[in-house]
């Protein structure tokens, strides 16, 4: 089961949030997790608007043999690739390195969008092939045991 929400303008971010909330509810995510997934969808959709202009968010359910049921949010666009993804997921960093703190707000964010996605999901993957960018976030219903951190 999958469904795409096309992201073209700010209101679409709202639609994406509504959609992921609904799907997460059906899957049995708790209230807090649902709101966290709404933030994840928000961040991914906002990034599409910011860097590519247009794109699509696709929502899928997955069934992992170990982790059980989960939700996959895939953000796809044809914008420029992320130079260095491991930089991009760090707070205060952009795809090409540290961001100037004085200019953070003028970028229309706080430089922590993907960082928030990492914190609120179980897995985050990035693919870039032939001009097609894809950021895939997965979150399972059952919380991961984070005994060792």
């Amino acid at each position, binding site marked *: 089961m999958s469904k795409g929400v096309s992201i073209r*303008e700010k209101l679409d971010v709202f639609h994406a949030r509504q959609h992921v909330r609904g799907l997460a509810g059906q899957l049995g995510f708790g209230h*807090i997790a649902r*709101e966290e997934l709404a933030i994840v969808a928000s961040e991914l959709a906002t990034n599409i608007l910011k860097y590519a202009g247009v794109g699509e968010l696709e929502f899928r359910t997955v069934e992992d043999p170990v982790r059980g049921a989960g939700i996959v949010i895939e953000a796809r666009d044809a914008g420029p690739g992320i130079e260095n993804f491991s930089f991009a997921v760090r707070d205060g960093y952009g795809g090409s390195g540290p961001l100037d703190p004085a200019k953070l707000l003028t970028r*229309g964010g*706080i*430089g922590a*969008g993907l*960082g*928030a996605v990492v914190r609120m999901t179980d897995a985050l993957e990035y693919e870039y092939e032939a001009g097609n960018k894809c950021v895939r976030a997965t979150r399972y219903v059952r919380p991961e045991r984070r005994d060792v951190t």
Partner: protein
Amino acid sequence: MSAGTISENVVRERIADVLMMLASITSGSTSDRLPAELPEDDPFAALYAGINEVVDTLISGQERLETYKGELEAKLDLIERQRSAIRELSTPVIEVWANVLCLPVVGVMDTARSAEMTEALLRAVTEKKARYAIIDVTGIEVMDTRTADHFLRMAKAVRLLGAECVVAGISPSIAQTIVHMGVDLSGVITYRTMREAMEAHAKAGSFSKHEALANGADTQNGERDRESRRQENGG
């Protein structure tokens, strides 16, 4: 006159007519049509009628398109206006009292919005010469650690502008988030509800209902009165 007897000159003339009419349509004319008074058995009669019909359809289609375009433009304009309304609604800064600002936050707090909010609040504090700003997060249940950190920084930034900034309505899950960040919370004053934040401010003598009513819109006077009263009360 039968089809077989039509002279070559006539044929050339008719073709020229057709070409001229098509050229004038192409150049933007909408009224030109081929003459319809040919005899019925003329082989060109059907052709002329057909061409005229096509041209009619084309022109009426064009006119419809023009109307749609106008409608579409009006709708796009409406959407643009609604969008800016939504933008404003997403970060409302309300002056609840003279020099007292309130920032009620509802819905989802993502990083982009927290950045927008900082900008709106800091600008409002300066523009409205605020002394006290209350950020009410009752409507927010979940916040990312970095966003929460950003919020606390926002409170400190407000203080740099010479106003006091308090936070009201922190939810249990956001409280956990903030504690897990391990940041110094000593400088951040929080209240359970917006009401408590207002009451605390009122009790501190920064403003009172009667005083504000008496002074009306003359906030500068009120400011001075409050200032002197605070000194009398010994802080």
